[in-house]
């Protein structure tokens, strides 16, 4: 008698999917660094990296190789265990979030339905929030373990920024959850496929969410934890070699994942706009591919938006950051939540 039947196909399928998504995250993060430099150059009337390979497309490989060959320096006065834990933490949390995002319509393999989502947990979006909150420990531990005043200041800034901006982010999200009635990511997407994208009903909520996502990713104009000109690169000042690479990479993976989350929550996930793709009667694998590409297109747009904003807006001052977070975004998000609730009651949905 079997007490536990192990479904090998499920396990293999999931392992392949996890490997693919991690590989994809790394690939996208690599090329976001490339486009970060390219877009910066274009916006400043320059050409940008163009030496490594055609149009410089091997630049990220060269950068990565350089980071690997750099000398590994651990400061004597630092706490060595935490010093190594910091970048590991940042990387793990950055990669963990991708597990609940639905990447496309389910794939049929040998008559088995295989969802393009690692785990469709019923508290999906809460999981994302939880992991992102843990992500700040990467910054805090790294900054603290460096035993350096600049790093410590950056860590404190990072922590307070994360706490301040998670509140309006969560409040903006509650309005979305009112509409879907579920925390499950697949339900949120299905609701948008049926009733139209949430951005139509929640433009203010999206704006708040987007601003907070910028802050959570430590992107300009909220890059106070790494403020180059004030804090000397902040929390990763003492880091070198691949530990620094992990921090930088985690930032880009976070950008990728937060773009995916925004696309999923407000822009219909893998839904193709203006058409009803269910009536197309395409082969299953093609449908999955198209839906995945659509999601990637949305993500690419958001990534470009991240870069575009970075090379346009200067950094907020610390007091401006706090004012914006506590005095503007939180009341706005509360207002948005109440209006949504009132409208839904009034329309008896």
């Amino acid at each position, binding site marked *: 008698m079997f007490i536990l039947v192990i479904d090998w196909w499920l396990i293999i399928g999931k392992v392949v999917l996890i490997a693919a998504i991690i590989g994809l995250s790394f690939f996208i993060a690599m090329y976001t660094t490339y486009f970060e430099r390219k877009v910066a150059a274009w*916006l400043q*009337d320059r*050409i940008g990296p163009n030496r490594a390979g055609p149009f410089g497309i091997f630049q990220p490989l060269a950068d990565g190789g350089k980071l690997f060959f750099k000398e590994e320096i651990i400061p004597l006065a630092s706490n060595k265990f935490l010093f190594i834990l910091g970048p590991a933490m940042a990387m793990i949390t950055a990669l963990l979030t991708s597990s609940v995002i639905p990447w496309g319509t389910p794939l049929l393999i040998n008559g088995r339905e295989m969802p393009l989502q690692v785990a469709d947990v019923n508290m999906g979006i809460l999981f994302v929030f939880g992991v992102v909150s843990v992500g700040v420990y990467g910054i805090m531990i790294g900054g603290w373990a460096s035993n350096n005043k600049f790093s410590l200041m950056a860590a404190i800034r990072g922590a307070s920024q994360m706490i301040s901006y998670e509140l309006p982010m969560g409040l903006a999200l509650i309005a979305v959850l009112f509409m879907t009635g579920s925390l499950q990511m697949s339900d949120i997407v299905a609701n948008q496929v049926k009733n139209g994208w949430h951005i139509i009903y929640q433009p203010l909520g999206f704006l708040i969410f987007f601003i907070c996502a910028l802050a959570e990713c430590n992107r300009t104009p909220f890059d106070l934890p790494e403020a180059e000109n004030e804090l000397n690169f902040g929390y990763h000042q003492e880091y070198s070699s691949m530990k620094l690479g992990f921090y930088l990479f985690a930032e880009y993976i976070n950008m990728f994942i937060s773009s995916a989350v925004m696309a999923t929550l407000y822009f219909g996930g893998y839904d193709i706009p203006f058409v009803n793709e269910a009536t197309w009667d395409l082969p299953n694998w093609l449908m999955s591919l198209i839906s995945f590409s659509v999601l990637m297109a949305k993500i690419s747009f958001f990534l470009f938006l991240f870069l*575009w*904003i970075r090379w*346009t*807006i200067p950094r907020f001052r610390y007091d401006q950051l706090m004012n914006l977070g506590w005095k*503007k975004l939180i009341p706005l998000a509360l207002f948005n939540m109440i209006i949504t609730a009132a409208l839904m009651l009034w329309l008896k949905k």
Partner: protein
Amino acid sequence: MQLTQRAKQVDRKPMTWVESIYLWNIFKGMMITLSHLFKRKATIKYPEETRTFSKVFRGLQVLNRDEEGRERCTACGLCAVACPAEAITMEAAERLPEEEHLYREEKYAAKYEINMLRCIFCGLCEEACPKDAIYLSQTFAPANYGRKGFIYKKEDLLIPNPLTHPAEYEKARGERTEEKV
């Protein structure tokens, strides 16, 4: 007191409501940066493309030859004296009877070196030279891995022989000497 007409009065009015929510101004700023995406690039792909220099550009020094391919330099040392950066050193030698096809005058520079790290490309050597033997071309010193590579010997500076290598001679000559000779 106003020194120029370009001075602008700084506006220190408190922010209006539209300004205080930043969004509209951020949008305007982003449109400005977006417009730069499509503008002509100010930079070029250097080794493949080069900018054209003006005719009075002062680049790398060239030691000139006359029409018969003989070196013009007589190692008088005036360029070295004129050089404010003291970048030029030379050693003179006397021409032997069988070397008349090599050197124009009875005395010539056996050794002629310019330290390109010291050189400020002012062109005073060119002005000082009574024999039109040195002038500044329209190329500049390329990058090098060591300091030694920047000390240019006579072989590096000498223009190609117009009799044996006419094409190279024309190229090295550039446009700069045309109005002078």
